[in-house]
């Protein structure tokens, strides 16, 4: 965190100055480790073994079993007590597999890449069928072919039309899962997970991770002692957890542990995703993701029953909890897309909306490109020639494009692939044969435009333009807006059905003259108009929506992203731009500093910060609580939720409110169900739906690994994504040709592929050359001296780097073998002020089955002196 998020680390430093303990678990001793009280070295990719060991340690500890807080939190706020389907088989029963594994058959798209697939029917809550608890991923189904109607396997009743869509929700089955609050039933979640993690002993943790067991126990104990009614602990992770074929499960394991420790929904708790760069959170809220539309609604797909708004809603809406509002969010979203053209009569233009047909994430798209199936590409602030996995493969794919638009600050490696890439230098690509037409557009910098950032804790913050960009440099909004305008002009008058959606797209962000009065660029689109559309407004009057509750399902409201509703409650009052800190003394939630979606809630699920009876768990950790004196008698309220934060809960719903078995939405939840986005209102220790690779995090080896899985005979994730291609060879487990674990990472001094840093002398001189960090032990073994040039070899490629021999790397004893790590920061490329080999030439195109994330944090290599 100190290494890659130095600014966010200021809060950690401040906590440290107040006596907080900092633990760092990382294969390397980094700048974060330097500030940590405990550094626990682990082998890259063994995180679930470490986390599973902590789960096992916690639930078998004396403190957890005697301090009443833990049981009270877990029984009431998580699904620990929920009974699971009798047919469910755990990894303990099937030696590393869950029940339901079958073969995966590729569909028409052909690039989903799964090596297997689970049917999650047996993972469900007893008495609650598939789909009731959450959505399955859009590409997790076998043999995906465009469907005319219906979801494979299930055939629900025909969807009642709307609006209004309440009858549709009412018609959906809403069974209540069975629970055993004593947690004794062998089929309850708690007993299943207890058994599941029983083999994750400290000895096993040491054997799998290489972390000395006393260090592991020290970590687990510190965390346990620092959790409870008056103390909380937080987890922070960055891409080191996401970039694995088990990445989603790693983060799930952390969430599971935090739920067991009562660290969710409480101040100072949680699992913080430190994103890859600025406003990555924002780019998933209003997404660049292929599989979701604004506000985490599933992208309409050709693979499910999505033929009408009603069908889409019937397939995707959860009838219980806050997601039951999806008809409102979705219809208002369609209004933001097609404006006046979206009417109840034409199903709000739903037919115009694009559909997905498979996994269109980055790696499959580059594979499709390599097959000549992609004609053009926009790379705006993206540099796949350096940042893409198996970058050599991706550069060769770029040569198959007809056109490539790069909009960036400098001529990136992607823009220059056709003239300076290693493939052109070594003759694999011939410059004269590359037909790709490359357009390079100069980009404005962040300080040269107004806009917003959304930070990891969902905090939306406005930034103001400082100066006009120089010359022809233009902002991304300018480029996109004017491109859209010109395309609209080109398509004007077309009667082709496929063009109607584009022609009806609302595309009017003309600036208010005041906004551009001080600027040279008079046609800069209005980002305030964009924020207005994101926030939402009354379709008829244009009046801004004030809160999510204002959103309607009949087209009378327009709202692009329901989760942002309220950020701009009236003209001239953009809450993202507010900068008023709370007065001392703390604690305070600083509610007037930026705006945190949804509804400015700073701690999500914060109902859990109070006991089931509504009183704070402790004075020290109180955040919101039930005040029986604050109710409005006129509204027949028994009290109000009050506190430092905005309650993430119906504001007047008393703690003793029972769940209405016939209710929809929030009425289906009781007054003790904090997890309002979940159908059952509970935090999920066990994940019955939504994940394609298992309901409980399980340690599998990385796909490329020097060891056999010490925990199970199942070696790796049984359903990961593997795109076997020439040029994307994968080393089998324990391949003696590639004995070392390779991890790629970033340095504080550079940013991503270096476009924002390697061109800057001030930053370039701080880390001028590519290096590979190795331990003195490995250096001695290979007779490598500090700063010697070395070769690093994987099945995909070979690069050269200078060796940085440092005791900060150490060999780990894993499964009776000494495992060496090779650490490679990946900021260098063949363009810019300081250049170096592209580290991602070594990595591979394989993916996590849930999110198609690559495994750049853990693969294997060999090292030789050059």
């Amino acid at each position, binding site marked *: 965190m100190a290494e890659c998020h130095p600014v966010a680390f200021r809060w950690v430093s401040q906590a440290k100055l107040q006596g907080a303990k900092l633990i760092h678990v990382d294969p390397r001793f980094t700048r974060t480790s*330097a500030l940590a009280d405990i*550094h626990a070295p682990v082998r890259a990719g063994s995180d679930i073994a470490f986390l599973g060991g902590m789960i096992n340690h916690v639930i078998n500890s004396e403190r957890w079993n005697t301090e009443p807080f833990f049981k009270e939190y877990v029984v009431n706020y998580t699904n620990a007590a929920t009974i699971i389907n009798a047919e469910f088989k755990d990894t303990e029963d099937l030696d590393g597999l869950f029940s339901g594994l079958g073969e995966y058959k590729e569909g028409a798209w052909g690039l989903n890449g799964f090596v297997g697939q689970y049917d999650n029917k047996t993972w469900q809550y007893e008495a609650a069928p598939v789909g009731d608890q959450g959505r399955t991923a859009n590409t997790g189904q076998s043999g995906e072919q465009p469907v005319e109607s219906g979801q494979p396997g299930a055939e629900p009743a025909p969807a009642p039309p709307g609006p209004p869509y309440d009858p549709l929700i009412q018609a959906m089955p809403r069974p209540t899962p069975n629970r055993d609050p004593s947690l004794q039933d062998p089929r309850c979640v708690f007993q299943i997970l207890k058994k599941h993690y029983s083999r994750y002993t400290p000895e096993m943790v040491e054997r799998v991770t290489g972390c*000395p067991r006393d260090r592991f126990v020290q970590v687990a104990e510190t965390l346990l002692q620092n959790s409870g009614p008056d103390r909380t602990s937080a987890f922070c992770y960055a891409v080191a957890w996401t970039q694995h074929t088990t990445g989603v499960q790693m983060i799930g394991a952390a969430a599971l542990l935090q739920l067991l420790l009562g660290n969710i929904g409480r101040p100072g708790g949680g699992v913080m995703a430190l994103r890859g760069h600025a406003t990555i959170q924002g780019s998933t809220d209003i997404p660049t993701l292929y599989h979701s539309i604004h506000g985490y609604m599933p992208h309409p797909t050709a693979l499910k029953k999505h033929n009408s708004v009603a069908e889409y809603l019937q397939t995707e809406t959860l009838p219980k909890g806050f997601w039951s509002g999806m008809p409102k969010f979705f219809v208002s979203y369609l209004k933001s897309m097609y404006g006046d053209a979206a009417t109840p009569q034409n199903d709000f233009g739903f037919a115009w909306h694009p559909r997905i047909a498979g996994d269109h994430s980055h790696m499959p798209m580059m594979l499709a490109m390599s097959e000549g199936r992609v004609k053009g590409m926009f790379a705006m602030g993206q540099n796949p020639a350096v940042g893409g996995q198996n970058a050599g493969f991706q550069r060769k794919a770029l040569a198959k494009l007809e056109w490539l638009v790069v909009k960036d600050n400098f001529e990136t490696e992607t823009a220059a692939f056709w003239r300076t890439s290693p493939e052109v230098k070594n003759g694999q690509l011939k410059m004269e044969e590359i037909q790709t037409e490359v357009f390079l557009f100069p980009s404005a910098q962040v300080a040269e435009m107004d806009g917003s950032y959304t930070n990891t804790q969902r905090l939306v913050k406005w930034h103001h333009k400082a100066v006009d960009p120089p010359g022809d440099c233009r902002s991304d909004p300018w480029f996109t807006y004017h491109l859209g305008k010109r395309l609209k002009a080109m398509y004007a008058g077309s009667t082709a059905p496929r063009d109607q959606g584009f022609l009806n797209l609302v595309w009017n962000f003309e600036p208010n003259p005041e906004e551009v009065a001080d600027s040279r660029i008079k046609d800069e689109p209005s980002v305030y108009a964009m924020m207005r559309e994101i926030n939402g407004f009354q379709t008829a009057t244009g009046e801004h929506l004030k809160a999510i509750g204002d959103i309607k399902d009949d087209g009378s409201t327009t709202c692009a992203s329901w989760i942002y509703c309220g950020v701009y409650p009236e003209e001239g009052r953009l809450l993202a731009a507010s900068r008023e800190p709370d007065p001392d003394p703390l604690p305070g939630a600083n509610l007037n500093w930026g705006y945190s979606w949804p509804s400015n809630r700073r701690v999500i699920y914060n109902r859990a910060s109070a006991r089931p009876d509504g009183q704070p768990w402790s004075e020290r950790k109180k955040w919101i609580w039930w005040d029986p004196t604050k109710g409005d008698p006129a509204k027949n309220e028994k009290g109000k939720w009050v506190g430092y934060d905005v309650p993430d809960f119906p504001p007047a719903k008393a703690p003793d409110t029972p769940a209405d078995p016939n209710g929809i939405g929030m009425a289906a939840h009781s007054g003790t169900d904090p997890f309002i986005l979940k159908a059952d209102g509970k935090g999920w220790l066990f994940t019955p739906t939504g994940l394609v690779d298992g309901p409980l995090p399980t340690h599998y080896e990385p796909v490329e690994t020097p060891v056999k899985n010490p925990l199970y005979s199942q070696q790796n994730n049984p359903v990961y994504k593997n795109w076997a291609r020439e040029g994307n060879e994968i080393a089998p487990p324990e391949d003696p040709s590639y004995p070392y674990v390779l991890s790629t990472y970033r340095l504080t001094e550079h940013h991503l592929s270096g476009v924002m840093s390697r061109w800057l002398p001030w930053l370039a*001189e*701080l880390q001028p050359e590519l290096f590979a960090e190795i331990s003195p032990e490995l250096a001695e073994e290979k007779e490598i001296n500090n700063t010697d040039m070395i070769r690093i070899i994987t099945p995909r490629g070979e690069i050269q780097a200078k060796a940085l021999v440092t*005791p900060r790397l150490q060999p780990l004893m894993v499964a009776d073998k000494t495992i060496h790590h090779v650490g490679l920061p990946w900021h260098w490329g063949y363009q810019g002020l300081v250049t170096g080999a592209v580290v991602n030439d070594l990595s591979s195109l394989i993916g996590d089955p849930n999110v198609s994330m690559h495994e750049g944090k853990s693969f294997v290599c060999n090292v030789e002196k050059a």
Partner: protein
Amino acid sequence: MAQTAQGTPATPAASTPSGETSFPAGTPIIVEGTPALGGSPMPGGSPPPPGTPVGAMIGTPAALETPAENTAAFPAAVPFDAVPMGFYTDTTVCIGCKACEVACKEWNGLSSYNGGVNVLSGDSYDNTRHLDGQHWRHVKFIEQFDNTNQGRQGRWLMMSDVCKHCVQAGCMDVCPTGAIIRTEFDTVVIQSDVCNGCRACIGACPFGVIEINPTNNTAMKCTLCYDRMQAGLTPACAQACPTASIQFGAIDDLKQSAQQRLEQLQSLGETRAQLYGADDKIVGGLNSFYLLVDEPEVYGLPASPQLPSRNVPTSGLMSTAGAVAMGVLGLVGLRKRRMDQFAAERAGTGQRDEEVTGD
């Protein structure tokens, strides 16, 4: 000692294209100072008596207390009170991010080694190596690990180094042009438009802070952002430091918080924790002082640095003695020669001068 009143124009001094720092006309300066021979309690130009106490300014200019017309992010341009100001660097929270190095360069318009095309040093993550004319901030990295190869433990010490703004400043003592001055904030500043590049200050600095800046060919170092301070702004490095490792403020306040932090660390069992330069034992005190968790030498700091002028009186005495000795020997020689000559003349064997004169 010339010292003019405070209340200078608030124009932040600009770095001119030539890279020279120049300060607004009427800048109050204290020229040359007085000698600060080793051990002398006389500092090189004592600062003005403390005025109104200012609060501990850790990244927050005191000027914020004054109602300002401009309520935007920029504080009003009100210079700080003329009391000793400086840095307290708490190395225990330094994360080695080098934001200070970059912020310093950005504000002061400093160049980079070879235009940025530097060479990997191989010494931990330190590639800028030391303070010099174009690096006024420098982060040191010290790797300390034990020899076990299973579960190796150790420390990675980091420290952002900078000019110490010594209360008795050796550089200022030796400077023959008066380019090095002491400001109303008791900081030490090189006026690059006065410096002629004799480089005496480079060798005089006990900490190896100063070097020639290749852009304007004069000796340069940290000014403690004198231009920013005059406008009531926190120095760029302290402003950029994300972890409050670099704290800026009135020295008296900084010393207090440093003392508290020292006690906290010691109570947590960090017995190696020590302050460096927070008292007057090191060249009269450092207006940029440090909290360390090892001996100063580990951080590349001299344990007991001294003023360059300490050697001058003795050296002068020695040389004078030598000169006197040679003079006396010369006189004795001449005298002896004359006596010999008399003796020879008396013996009738003397030569006459004129016979051998060559002109």
